[in-house]
């Protein structure tokens, strides 16, 4: 297992923890816990989730560091990025779109964070789905 594989594994784990927690609580746990009988049990579980489920910032930190290191190990230099050479290629454009979407998710994290946001969370999930789609294109595309 080389350094690049370790970075990929950490990047994937961080993304899964962040997105997994968000999707599962929004689509499954949050809905089911409202119907737990007795309601007191559901309330205690919700409180534990709010207390210990803040994966956003730690995951973003790991994703940022591992993402930049993977770009460096792919021999993409500052010159490639600043000159626009990198962004003119299909993979560069995919990467640009991914960075913009992750920026939107970081903004959500900044303004909303781990607080309940019944409507905005779905917009954040749409961003996450787009990031996942772009990541699959980045890895599996024939370009």
């Amino acid at each position, binding site marked *: 297992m080389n350094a690049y594989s370790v970075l990929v594994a950490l990047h994937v784990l961080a993304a899964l923890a962040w*997105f*997994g927690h968000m999707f599962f609580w929004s689509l499954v746990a949050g809905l089911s816990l409202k*119907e737990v009988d007795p309601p007191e049990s559901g309330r205690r579980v919700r409180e534990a989730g709010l207390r210990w489920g803040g994966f956003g910032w730690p995951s973003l930190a790991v994703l940022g560091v591992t993402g930049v290191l993977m770009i460096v190990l792919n021999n993409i230099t500052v010159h490639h990025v600043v000159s626009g050479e990198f962004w003119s290629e299909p993979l560069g454009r995919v990467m640009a779109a991914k960075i913009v979407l992750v920026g939107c998710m970081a903004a959500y994290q900044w303004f909303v964070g781990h607080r309940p946001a019944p409507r905005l969370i779905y917009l954040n999930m749409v961003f996450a789905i787009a990031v996942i789609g772009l990541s699959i294109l980045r890895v599996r595309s024939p370009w």
Partner: protein
Amino acid sequence: MAAHLIIVFLHIMTSIVWVGYVLFWTIVAGPIARSGGSSEAARVFEAVNRAPWPPRKIPTPFRFKFSQVGGLLLIVLAITGFVLVVAEGIGPGDLLSGRFLADRFGRLLAAKLVFVALLAVLQFRLAARPSQRSAYANLAAAVVVVVLSALLARSVGK
């Protein structure tokens, strides 16, 4: 190509929700067991496992228990995973005969299948009798499966 990417997307989206399920028990099991003791925690976990999903106010022809959600996600992962393995040229015959172990992809796949089987057992236990210990064991096995999956994705076509 498009169909293949859709299956990959479905596999990854399901694995994301499934990791959320694993994290759910890891996050809530410890604090609740510590604050209320093991018998109180068992009572809370049983109540959670009995809760319906989707909730009753959402009209749907099917409804599951919370305890069944992890198993459902594993079934979707197994089906999409099998389709992806077949797309890599490994058929059921190769899997049964052990021919797939000839290269790095096959050996990583074998390791992943072993841990997925372990996960299935742990998940069954978690659904039947949730506890702090089974939640942490489930998380550890899930981390190994995710790391093996990342390595597997990198070795596709090599």
